[in-house]
């Protein structure tokens, strides 16, 4: 399957969105709203729930179910208040020692004038800075689209997982085609060149594992995912915090391909 075909699948309407994973993975959820600074952003769902017997904080970028819902959620393109809500709930999780589980599905951070006025760049930058030092485990799963900085703002994690057909990209293939070739029709080529598939993420050390998509047996699929989370969380929680943070640091520290004095 080509990268473009995967991109199309990742964007299919009717594919399970953030809410479906929250409902399937966590019991007794309490949803929490607002950034306590400016407002509430429906593009990011957040709250507390149980992963088996373990209370966790969940954060999910939600594209919406039907047209009305999608409009209310800005089609899953978060604004600064969404990222600030996410940060607030992450800091809350840190205070109470709860692991953070993030679900990413976005074309990217919202690019409107209001988002710029309220500091979209700063909001993402602060999440990157804070997540780098958050003293509880962070697990991030890309369930559909992982669009650029808007996805990374929930992606500075100890473990990153990709759904089988999920994609993760520095820029949308449309944006890339438009900037480089002044031709948004070259999306297929751009998707290919950008290397956005789950296998690419494994290859570049961006993700640790790929979850097979068996949406027709969604509860069973989530059961498998849950087992993986529990396994990785028990490993992370057994480590001294300093070691976990050092490993998180090194996880990103080693990403980069270059030569020094002509040597790779």
């Amino acid at each position, binding site marked *: 399957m080509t990268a473009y075909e995967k991109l199309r699948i990742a964007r299919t309407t009717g594919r399970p969105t953030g809410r479906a994973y929250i409902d399937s993975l966590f019991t007794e959820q309490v949803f929490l709203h607002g950034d306590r600074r400016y407002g509430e952003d429906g593009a990011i769902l957040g709250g507390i729930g149980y992963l088996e017997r373990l209370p966790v904080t969940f954060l999910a970028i939600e594209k919406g179910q039907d047209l009305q819902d999608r409009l209310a959620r800005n089609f899953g393109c978060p604004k600064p208040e969404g990222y600030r809500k996410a940060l607030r709930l992450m800091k809350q999780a840190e205070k109470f020692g709860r692991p953070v589980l993030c679900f990413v599905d976005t074309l990217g951070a919202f*690019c409107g004038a209001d988002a710029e006025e309220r*500091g979209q760049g700063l909001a993402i930058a*602060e999440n990157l*800075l804070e997540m*780098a030092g958050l003293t509880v485990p962070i697990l991030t799963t890309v369930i559909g689209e992982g669009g650029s*900085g808007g996805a990374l703002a929930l992606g*500075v994690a100890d473990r990153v997982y990709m759904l089988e057909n999920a994609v993760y990209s*520095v820029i949308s293939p449309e944006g890339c085609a438009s900037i480089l070739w002044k031709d948004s029709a070259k999306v297929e080529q751009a998707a290919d*060149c950008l290397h956005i598939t789950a296998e690419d993420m494994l290859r570049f050390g961006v993700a640790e594992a790929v979850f097979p998509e068996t949406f027709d047996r969604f509860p069973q699929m989530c059961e498998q995912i849950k087992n993986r989370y529990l396994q990785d969380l028990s490993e992370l929680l057994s480590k001294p915090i300093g070691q976990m943070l050092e490993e998180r640091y090194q996880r990103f520290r080693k990403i980069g391909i270059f030569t020094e004095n002509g040597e790779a």
Partner: protein
Amino acid sequence: MKFLTNLLSKLSGKDEAPLICKSCKTEIPAKVARKNDYLCSSCGKYLRFGGRRRIQWIADEKTFQEISPNLSSQDFLQFPNYAQKLWEAENTTGEKDAVVCGTAKIKGNPCVIFAMEPDFIMASMGSVVGEKITRAFEYALEHQLPVLGFTASGGARMQEGIVSLMQMAKVSAAVRRHSDAGNLYLTVLTDPTTGGVTASFAMQGDIILAEPGALVGFAGRRVVEQTTGSNLPKDFQRSEFLLQHGFVDEIVSRSKLKETIALLLRMHNREVRI
């Protein structure tokens, strides 16, 4: 064919490449520009300049010592035209990539300094930029030095795919460690600072200064206009707009920049006690 002319002038032993004013398109010899604090000698507007020139301009004479000068980008995705673009950029700027890092003194105050080079593929951030700035912060942490960063960037370097996006996280983590140890990070936003650089280390400074009129934003103006569906005010995403909205500490003119930076560095000198 700018790179060809520059290459020729380099080979023929002439001076470094001239600067071109974005406002009035006048070509200004490098020496003249330097003498004039990088203001256009024809229209008085700010010239776009960065990298090595920026460091030479701001640092005390003969104090700059470069960190990791020999890192080069690789076309590891075999991305169309990337190898060609790298070659051209190298020849246009004489740099191996889009950032210059090192140690320097500003009016006697030691710091780690980095300055991005807008003429190198729009100072986009790929593996080399990410690695060099990360090393600069790690060096500063090890030696308990403040970091002074001049940002300018078109954003993440898409020719390096997801690896370029991850540089945002990598640098941010290094900024965090440097900050947790109580060290100062001072950023100066210069024209243009956009995309993934704005969404990471440009906005992570303890103190954020900006040059007058510098374009600073996350999304590009054209994209925002398309999304918003209306025309934007003229000063949209300019440093004055950012100051008004509370995102930069101060706008400082070039004539005041060196003394302002020196003062801030001095105020954060950790060895001074009553």
